[in-house]
């Protein structure tokens, strides 16, 4: 095939493989070649599993030759965030403390991807244990935004988003605790979905903040995201917080792409001051596009959203200080001892000091503080109450609208190093994405154009009620279609050649 297979979307690739127009091995080789030629500059991958990927692709081709029925994404390559456990394949979470660890088990979604014939190319870079908004907090060096290699690809899932934008993979997996799927999607011009909490199994996903974490699909089109979401989603008895009822019809919703008669609400508190002019401009144009598509545009107020960030930065560090306690050099991963016959306590202290980077350390200490006797009620306890208020805000807003929208992130991609040692400035990137994590409802980011002032992608966020993830796909696909017409093709065609 003379065509560049890396430019195809997942749906196209899957039907071509199913129809025998192209083999899964050919598709996989094309992506492995692409990774080999560009990833030294992008650094989306921490580990490329060439052998595993080709074996999986070969198995799909054989299954097809044997006349077996293929899954809807069989033969499609995927980039897996390095926070997802893969049996026998390194899983580091971007941290020195897990360097070299090869899990003895697969995450539920890893199993579902494998069973579905999805070809896992390798593991993608991320902020250490998913803490960060730039992927600069990876112990293994930052990922670069394919739109401008001097800029961040967002975070924590910058590796997955950059792999999509650099055409290293048509599909990727992210995790989203406060925006780690949606914000990287926004700044790389890709699509990312944080499903309803409990919609996709967390079993085998290394936990950051258990009550906020959610795994989700990353893709270059809304339909591809729906296909991937369908493969990984649904009930898992290994995850107590997994929703028992079946997923809504996400693919059908993405194909429907019809917002006529729907009420779409702009959230007053997410926009305006603090948002870059070009971000606001592209957002406003998207709102107009929804109106022309026949949706009714309303405005809602969510008065407690401004407190979401503060609540989040208490809940997350608290849970993470406990979740990350297990990394102590006793059972797996790094152990830093020393030749002075140290005690177990000393070895734990040294291992964790050497193994965790600055942001992880900062949040562990902060969480330890917030959970301490005497502070618990004032901090963690209060933050949980704010969570209730945010849920009430959402409930009230969804009385007035079918979905809510906002810019995904206040700015386009910033420069590498710009906010590295200014945690508060970094945290502000998540101001619009965090409410969904606190309340548990789903959110999607999709590209709405380039900011005129810097030529960088802008993302729009769609938020739906819990378990109504299908609305995201319906509304997102409708907007995507009208923008593709306007642009004359995918926005990612504008990515500079690497």
């Amino acid at each position, binding site marked *: 095939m003379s065509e560049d297979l890396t430019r195809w979307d997942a749906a196209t690739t899957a039907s071509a493989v199913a129809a025998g127009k192209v083999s899964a091995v050919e598709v996989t080789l094309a992506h492995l070649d692409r990774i080999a030629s560009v990833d030294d500059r992008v650094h989306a991958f921490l580990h490329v599993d060439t052998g595993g990927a080709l074996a999986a692709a070969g198995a799909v081709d054989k299954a097809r030759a044997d006349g077996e029925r293929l899954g809807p994404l069989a033969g499609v390559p995927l980039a897996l965030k390095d926070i997802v456990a893969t049996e026998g394949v390194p899983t580091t979470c971007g941290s020195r403390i897990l360097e070299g660890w090869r899990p003895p088990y697969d995450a539920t979604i890893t199993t579902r991807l494998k069973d579905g014939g999805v070809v896992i190319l390798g593991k993608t870079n991320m902020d250490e244990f998913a803490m960060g908004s730039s992927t600069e907090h990876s112990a293994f060096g930052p990922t670069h935004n394919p739109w401008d290699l001097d800029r961040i690809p967002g975070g924590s899932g910058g590796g997955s988003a950059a792999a999509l934008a650099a055409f290293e993979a048509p599909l990727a997996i992210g995790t989203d605790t406060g925006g780690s799927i949606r914000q990287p999607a926004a700044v790389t011009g890709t699509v990312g979905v944080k499903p309803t909490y409990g919609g996709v199994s967390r*079993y*085998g996903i290394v*936990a950051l903040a*258990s009550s906020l974490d959610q795994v989700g699909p990353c893709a270059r089109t809304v339909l591809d995201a729906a296909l991937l979401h369908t493969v990984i989603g649904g009930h898992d008895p290994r995850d107590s917080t997994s929703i028992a009822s079946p997923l809504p019809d996400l693919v059908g919703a993405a194909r429907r792409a019809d917002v006529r008669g729907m009420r779409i609400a702009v959230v007053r508190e997410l926009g305006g001051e603090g948002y870059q002019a070009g971000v606001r401009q592209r957002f406003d144009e998207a709102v107009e596009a929804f109106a022309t598509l026949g949706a009714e545009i309303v405005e809602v107020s969510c008065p407690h959203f401004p407190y979401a960030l503060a609540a989040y930065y208490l809940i997350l560090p608290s849970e993470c200080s406990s979740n990350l*306690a*297990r990394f102590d050099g006793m059972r797996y991963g790094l152990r830093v001892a020393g030749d002075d016959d140290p005690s177990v306590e000393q070895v734990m202290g040294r291992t964790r000091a050497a193994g965790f980077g600055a942001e992880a350390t900062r949040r562990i200490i902060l969480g330890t503080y917030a*959970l*301490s006797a005497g502070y618990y009620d004032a901090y963690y306890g209060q933050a949980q109450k704010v969570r209730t208020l945010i849920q009430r805000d959402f409930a009230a807003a969804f009385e007035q609208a079918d979905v809510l929208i906002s810019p995904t992130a206040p700015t386009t991609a910033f420069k590498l190093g710009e906010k590295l040692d200014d945690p508060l400035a970094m945290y502000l990137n998540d101001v619009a994405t965090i409410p969904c994590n606190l309340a548990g409802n789903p959110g999607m980011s999709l590209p709405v154009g380039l900011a005129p002032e810097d030529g960088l992608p802008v993302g729009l966020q769609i938020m739906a009620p819990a378990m109504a993830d299908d609305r995201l796909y319906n509304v997102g696909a409708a907007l995507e279609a009208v923008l593709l017409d306007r642009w004359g093709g995918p926005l990612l065609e504008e990515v500079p050649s690497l």
Partner: protein
Amino acid sequence: MTSAADKVLPYDEVSAAYDPVLGLEVHVELGTATKMFCGCSTVFGAEPNTQTCPVCLGLPGSLPVVNAMAIESAIRIGLALNCQIATWCRFARKNYFYPDMPKNFQTSQYDEPICFDGYLDVDVDTAEGRRTVRVEIERAHMEEDTGKTLHHGGATGRIHGADYSLVDYNRAGIPLIEIVTKPVPGAGKFAPEVARAYVTALRETLRSLEVSDLKMEQGSMRCDVNLSLRAAPEAPLGTRTETKNDNSLRSIERAVRYEMTRQGAVLSEGGSVLQETRHWHEDTGITTSGRVKSDADDYRYFPEPDLLPIAPSPEWVEQLRATLPESPAVVRARTQVAWGISDFDMLAVTSAGALELVTATVAAGADQAAARKWWLGELARVANERSVELADLAITPADVAEVESLVVSGTLNDTLARQVIEGVLAGEGTPSEVVAARGLAVVRDDAPLLAAIDEALASQPDVAEKIRGGKVAAAGAIVGAVMKATRGQADAARVRELILQRIPPPPDP
């Protein structure tokens, strides 16, 4: 850390001068097939680290799922201890670092236990007679067990001075119920007996529920004793110590007694008791200071976010209540009346942990006195010799009843019966099989007995003379010789009869 210098006061002095307040925390490993939060087997004694999975090893990414049977057992325990059952409760994380805990937090319950506010009435038999003490239960909550650590190197093989340790996580994640009493005042000089009687009664109650195998020596039931002294019952509570490693009923009693004498010595010299964990040493009969836990004041509990709240419905609780057996106290009282035995005799049965065994033996057809005699006599002796529980002996109540019926029918005498029991315990089969295999039945035919008598008389000619001279008691020597020659299979009374027929003593004057 050295304890050699701990002074003690004589017990009578302490109990005269101070009022002890007890508190007991008992951990019970539930006898579920699988662990609290994963499907790993809980069978005791497997090769190290062969009963683990990502969940109980705390591997990154793994998640817990609650074992329904553990919840049911917890609720049944709560009901049997007259507790309230929470209508809504949660697990919490107790955060501290220790190498036997794979996640460096223990999934436990904190301020929302599943069972609370109960009590257990405990019969305490003292030198001054029986009294019943109501021990109030503060809470019974669920948690997971830790791994097991072996300490290597160093002089003592104990934890201090060890060069390194080895950890086996097979036990990690096994469901535990921790049953915590409220402070128990008013025990006075009988505090050691009350502590022991409470644990005995608790064990009896739990045994009747069949929720745990309750083996203190294997650690499936573990007891910590809190103790403080105060000058008078009206005085505020004193500073308490928590004594661990009390792994038998006897050591609980001894540890309380020792702690009273140790704390009494400290207080009588005007000192103050240090709030600390202490360790009981069975061999030396003393407690030594453990660490004053540095992190203990800050476990940073918070609700376990990977688990959902538990809200037992009233229907579920009532369904479980219907499965409760009669309370052991009621069973005991009813049984005592049926057997018509004294308090003293009943206490002997219960304190030996033999009530169920004796009852089952009676149900299998034995007379109650005989059943008690076997379990509290020969079998108790063997169990003691082997340091095991009566219930762990390889003999069933049905076996014992069969032995007794063979005695009643005259097939066996006491000596032979003991040999049959020995055979059953050695795995040689049922009592009848052992009798057949060992050829142990009492000899009924007089001919071989007469032959043995003649032989014995021939070898001891003076005996016949003595009998003829009127010293009938001398026949005993011949009986003994005949019993020996027949390997105990003769009926001693019949042998005596035959001897006296052979050599008639002079008629009574």
